[in-house]
């Protein structure tokens, strides 16, 4: 089964059902399927071929949803990129996957102009909005992302289920993003497992405020199309009350959240809204402090709350059944349907209950690897029990209790999670060090009640090269996505070194733990792990 069949089957069964609500636009399955067929023909006419990568650089919108399915119907691979990505990183991503086409907002045409001479493999740009008058040149065609005059019959199917459907870039500890290769089979399998444990039905209406460039947000659309429900798509959670008013008006039954949004919601007066239609809430991407989880459940007594864990490399790993929430709120549950999880020691041998080790996942949802990065792939995918099978070594440390419930302990590398988004300290350090006044920089995570972890940069300036905190934050904002820009920057005369000459992060974290830290005026909330084995104050659950 191909991923685009989610849309095609639902369109065949309920052509007139509203599939997507976005602002004041309401689109049926039939209308979306027809327009995606047309847009697929447009891509094919621009010589997008089977297996070609097409980057989607859009905000959450009708066009972004159409782009996903148009690319799949053309037999190509969609690459969703966060719309706050800055031009230099976008150029890197376009070149890294040798994207053939880019779908971007016309409003960004001027900002993207410097990219055209730098991206030789990119042959077509499709603009959402009025195509800019400024020509693109450089051997590239430029056109509006539109369906006019194109057939609404589906293009011939070219792929099989083990072909790639998507490439989703994820941050790595080396600072370079890695493209997670996902086949149709990977994505169909993951979506099926998830909709099974969430018990989704066609009458579910899901509100999505998460970026479609993030697999958690993307799958809200994919899964809703699979079970024939409705997605209410919001651009962001910037104006929370407007979003909640929409949720209530549309009688939304499902609300996927990240812990940052849970924390924000807990500061609002939720009793003013009628939540009677809300069947379930989900939370993943970072650890949900136990106190927040329990307070949240108290606000929504009729709603099932699913605390979950996953990673882009396999979409999702586990979920805590809601009826276990009171009993073991710190657990992120057991493996989802059609998947096996286990914990191994340093020699890759399975360990028993209570022993901390690395979590390993096997299942049809496990990625095929990182795009053109065999070494990095070999660190995460290792042979599983069957010949030719690759199991995913998550890089996360867990322990299991006697009944197989998982408890997050820490990360093996020093990746951070801020607002539920993965942040590579190295990537931020590289950017800081790119500023002419910076001699050295180290980036750490500090606990924050809303962000999960706030990003803190400790910077040593060059002699006679003054710079302010604001100068450095501005510099970062020009090269990093919003959620990666440090909230806190501190200047230091020097950085402590450990015996091997590297910056001693442990010493820095220990020093900071002795002070009151935090990005917001609320005191840090307690909660999280029971019996954490490490006293490291920054090792927050991911």
């Amino acid at each position, binding site marked *: 089964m191909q991923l685009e069949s989610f849309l095609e089957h639902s369109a065949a069964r309920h052509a007139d059902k509203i599939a997507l609500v976005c602002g004041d636009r309401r689109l049926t399955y039939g209308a979306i399927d027809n327009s995606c067929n047309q847009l697929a023909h447009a891509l094919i006419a621009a010589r997008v071929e089977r297996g070609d990568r097409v980057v989607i650089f859009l905000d959450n919108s009708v066009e972004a949803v159409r782009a996903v399915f148009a690319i799949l119907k053309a037999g190509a691979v969609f690459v969703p990129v966060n*719309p*706050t990505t800055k031009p230099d990183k976008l150029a890197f991503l376009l070149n890294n996957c040798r994207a053939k086409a880019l779908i971007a907002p016309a*409003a960004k045409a001027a900002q993207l102009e410097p990219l055209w001479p730098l991206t030789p493999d990119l042959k077509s740009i499709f603009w959402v909005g009025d195509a800019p008058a400024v020509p693109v040149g450089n051997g590239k065609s430029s056109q509006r992302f539109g369906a006019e005059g194109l057939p609404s019959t589906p293009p011939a199917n070219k792929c099989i289920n083990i072909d790639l459907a998507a490439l989703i870039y994820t941050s790595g500890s080396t600072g370079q993003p890695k493209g997670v290769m996902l086949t149709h089979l990977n994505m169909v399998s993951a979506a099926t497992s998830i909709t099974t444990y969430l018990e989704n039905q066609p009458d579910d209406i899901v509100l999505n405020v998460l970026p479609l460039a993030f697999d958690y947000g993307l799958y809200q659309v994919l899964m809703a199309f699979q079970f024939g429900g409705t997605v209410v798509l919001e*651009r*962001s*959670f*910037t*104006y*929370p*009350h*407007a979003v909640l008013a929409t949720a209530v008006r549309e009688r939304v039954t499902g609300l996927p959240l990240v812990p*940052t*949004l849970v924390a*924000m919601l807990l500061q*609002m*007066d939720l009793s*003013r809204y009628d939540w009677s239609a809300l069947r379930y809430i989900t939370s993943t991407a970072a650890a949900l402090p136990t106190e927040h989880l329990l307070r949240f459940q108290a606000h929504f007594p009729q709603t099932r709350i699913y605390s979950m864990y996953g990673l882009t490399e396999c979409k999702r790993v586990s979920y805590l059944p809601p009826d276990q929430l009171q009993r073991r709120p710190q657990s992120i549950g057991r493996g989802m349907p059609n998947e096996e999880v286990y914990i191994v020691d340093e020699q890759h041998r399975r360990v028993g209950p209570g022993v901390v080790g690395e979590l390993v996942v096997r299942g049809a949802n496990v990625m095929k690897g990182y795009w053109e990065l065999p070494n990095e792939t070999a660190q995460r995918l290792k042979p599983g029990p069957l010949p030719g099978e690759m199991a995913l070594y998550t890089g996360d440390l867990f322990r299991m209790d006697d009944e197989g419930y998982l408890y997050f302990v820490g990360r093996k590398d020093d990746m951070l999670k801020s*607002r539920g988004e993965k942040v590579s300290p190295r990537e931020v350090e590289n950017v800081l060090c790119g500023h002419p006044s910076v001699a050295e920089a180290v980036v750490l995570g500090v606990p924050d009640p*809303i*962000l999960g972890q706030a990003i803190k940069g400790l910077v040593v300036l060059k002699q006679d090269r003054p710079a302010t905190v*604001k*100068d450095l*934050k*501005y510099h970062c*904002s020009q090269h990093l996505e*919003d959620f990666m820009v440090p909230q806190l920057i501190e200047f230091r005369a020097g950085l402590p070194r450990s015996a091997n000459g590297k910056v001693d992060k442990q010493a820095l974290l220990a020093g900071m733990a002795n002070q009151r830290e935090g990005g*917001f*005026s609320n005191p840090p909330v307690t909660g999280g792990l029971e019996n954490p084995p490490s006293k490291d104050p920054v090792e927050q659950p991911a």
Partner: protein
Amino acid sequence: MQTIRHFVVENFLFGQGGDRLGDRDSFLEKGIIDSTGVLELVTFLEKQFQIKILDEELVPDNLDSLEKLAQFVAAKQAEKRAAAEPAILAKM
């Protein structure tokens, strides 16, 4: 308006590009403020202008541009003055 402009430029644009920010430019459209930014903005407005902003007032119509922010703050201050008057009358 100037105080508000200064705060937005300093905190969300890191001191740069203030001359390119029009009074009517939508923060949402321009990607200038996100959900955590709105919280900071509200804290600033409440402290700076001694007003209390209600949850339901956190909507684009009130907050999504410099001009809208200025109008919203002016309206809240007028509301506050109107609420104070009966107390003055009562004393007389």
